[in-house]
């Protein structure tokens, strides 16, 4: 078995490690929960962590592999969340819970995907910072419109208003589903850590397969040199859209997972800051590194909460900002990269120097 792993293509091995990390995390958490060693705070964050990991992976597809900066990922998350949760709330008690959750996830993913297509077709013609600003604008539009959106359901069907709940004109026994700024309240929670991990693995499977397929190579070719890619006959629009829509679909699904972990859902939750947070996961984890996205999303979600335990409550966000800047500088500054390389070299030299006498002394190889 070990032999086989050794001889695997390095890519397959790398993928296995990525899956391994996710499964390993799951097993570790389940074991530690079983023996009651995890803090409630950490357990409470498990579902959000899964959702953020999905968001980071899906955004990495757009930013890391397609090479387009998107500042509106939370918009897709929001669409998915509101679509899926509306269905979930509207069908409460009419269909079995597992079916409801499944449909909610699919509906959320599909709706976000449709918006991905609608936005993607015109927008992907733009380049660089302009695309970034349009996605930012899209995110703001979603927040604003859903804040003003009232949807109710009664025996006559679905009613929509942009004014207030009263103008929905609901018949007796009707139910307001989305109540403007109040959003959706009294959502029966349905997300579990297991569901989260299943969805993370699903996201991973789809995204990794896409990246390593013919389409994936076309996508990275577009990132590396759009003109060259076009000149060898790669259909730019098709592959750009493929990446963008896949990214939106999983953002929508993550939105449903996230929203079903809370009792209420408000539009403001998915504002510009949330998009930026997800982008941070991707950039800090390393653009184009799926594994990096997973780890960064998990660590950066836990980090601000962790700081509570240090008794630095009021300085929490300040420290978070400083850590962010420091990590960016350490991670991406050419000088820092140079320095790290030098240190690594020194370190390995030192290790080698120490190993030598040890080896000659004991006569046994340490490797």
């Amino acid at each position, binding site marked *: 078995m070990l032999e086989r792993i050794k001889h695997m293509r390095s890519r397959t091995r790398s993928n296995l490690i990525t899956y391994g990390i996710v499964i390993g995390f799951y097993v570790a958490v389940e074991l530690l929960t079983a023996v009651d060693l995890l803090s409630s705070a950490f357990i409470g964050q498990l579902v959000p962590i899964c959702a953020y990991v999905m968001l980071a992976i899906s955004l990495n597809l757009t*930013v890391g592999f397609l090479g387009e*900066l998107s500042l509106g990922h939370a918009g897709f998350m929001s669409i998915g969340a509101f679509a899926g949760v509306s269905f979930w709330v509207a069908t409460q008690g009419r269909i079995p819970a597992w079916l409801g959750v499944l449909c909610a996830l699919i509906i959320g993913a599909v709706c976000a995907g449709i918006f991905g297509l609608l936005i993607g077709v*015109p*927008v992907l*013609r*733009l*380049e660089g*910072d*302009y695309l*970034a*600003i*349009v996605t*930012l*604008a*899209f995110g*703001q*539009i979603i927040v*604003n*419109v859903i*804040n*003003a959106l009232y949807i109710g359901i009664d025996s006559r069907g679905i009613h929509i208003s*942009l*004014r207030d709940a009263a103008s929905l004109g609901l018949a007796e026994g009707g139910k307001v589903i989305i109540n403007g700024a109040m959003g959706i309240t009294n959502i029966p929670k349905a997300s579990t850590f297991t569901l989260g991990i299943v969805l993370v693995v699903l996201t991973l499977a789809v995204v990794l397969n896409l990246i390593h397929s013919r389409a994936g190579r076309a996508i990275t070719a577009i990132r590396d*040199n759009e*003109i*060259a890619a076009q*000149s060898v006959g790669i259909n730019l629009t098709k592959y750009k859209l493929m990446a963008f829509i896949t990214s939106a679909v999983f953002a929508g699904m993550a939105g449903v997972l996230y929203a079903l972990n809370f009792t209420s859902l408000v539009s403001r939750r998915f504002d*510009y800051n949330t998009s*930026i947070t997800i*982008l*941070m996961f991707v*950039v*800090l984890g390393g*653009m184009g590194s799926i594994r990096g996205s997973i780890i960064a999303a998990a660590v950066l979600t836990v980090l601000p909460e962790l700081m509570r335990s240090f008794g630095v409550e*009021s*300085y929490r*966000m*300040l420290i*978070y*900002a*400083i850590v*962010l*800047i420091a990590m*960016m*500088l350490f*991670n*991406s*500054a*050419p*000088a*820092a990269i140079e320095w790290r390389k030098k240190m690594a070299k020194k370190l390995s030299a030192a290790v080698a120097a120490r190993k030598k006498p040890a080896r000659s002394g004991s006569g046994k190889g340490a490797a």
Partner: protein
Amino acid sequence: MQFLSNLIGGVSLGSVYALIALGYTMVYGIARMLNFAHGDVIMVGAYIVFFTFCSGGMHPLLAILIAMAACTLLGVTIERVAYRPLREAPSLAVLITAIGVSYLLQNGALLLWSANPRAFTSVVSVSPISLFGGQLTIPGNTVINVAVCLVIMVGLTLFVNHTTPGHAMQAVSEDRGAAQLMGINVNATISLTFAIGSALAAVAGALLCSSYPMLQPTTGAMPGIKAFTAAVFGGIGSIPGALLGGILLGVIENLSKAYISTQVSDAIVFLVLIVILLIKPTGLLGKRRVVKV
């Protein structure tokens, strides 16, 4: 008459966006980076003017000069510490760092000056202009905002086109490598750009809060985003474009509030932005950069 009044309100708001957008566009045009912390530098500038002028009783011009000096120092320090080491790094890395700086300034201000809002006294003492027998008033702030905007725009254009440091800026903007080979000190030029951008931020902060007096640590955030879209709207990197984009954005925002819906006015503003970018992808006055293989 109501239409005119709404239009004037839009110009007033737009001139504030334009002032902020000028800073964005300077930095973007020359350093090729989106300085997301610009809105928060504005907030810092406004706080300094608040403490020197509103509660300190200094002369408004002196207060603004102090704020400009302080913001220049802040901007140059930020550039030196957080952005310069990343000069050769991918642009996204710089963007995230800028977001980190933005968080840092907001939360620093929160700790330093508390979350309690402050009421800003207008630095402008120009009396409102009354037209049509008092049916239409143009607030003094609006007049000053527009005038300051025009002066700064003209000043910046002259500076960039007719002075040696200005030429250096243009060269750095065109091709950083080539500029360096020609003996231009790229770091100094970019520092200068940040110094100018941040000094403008102080002015923008003072005028923003003179028109809209509530000052909080989050005050710069939303106008920052709007001004950023205004800069893109006008063609980012273009100085007249920032002015045009800012004013148009303000007018569109106000008219859509007045005649379409106040509830979804933000959505309309951003929708217009998207449509314009789709029709003219480089913004209104932006230059198209042709990429050659």
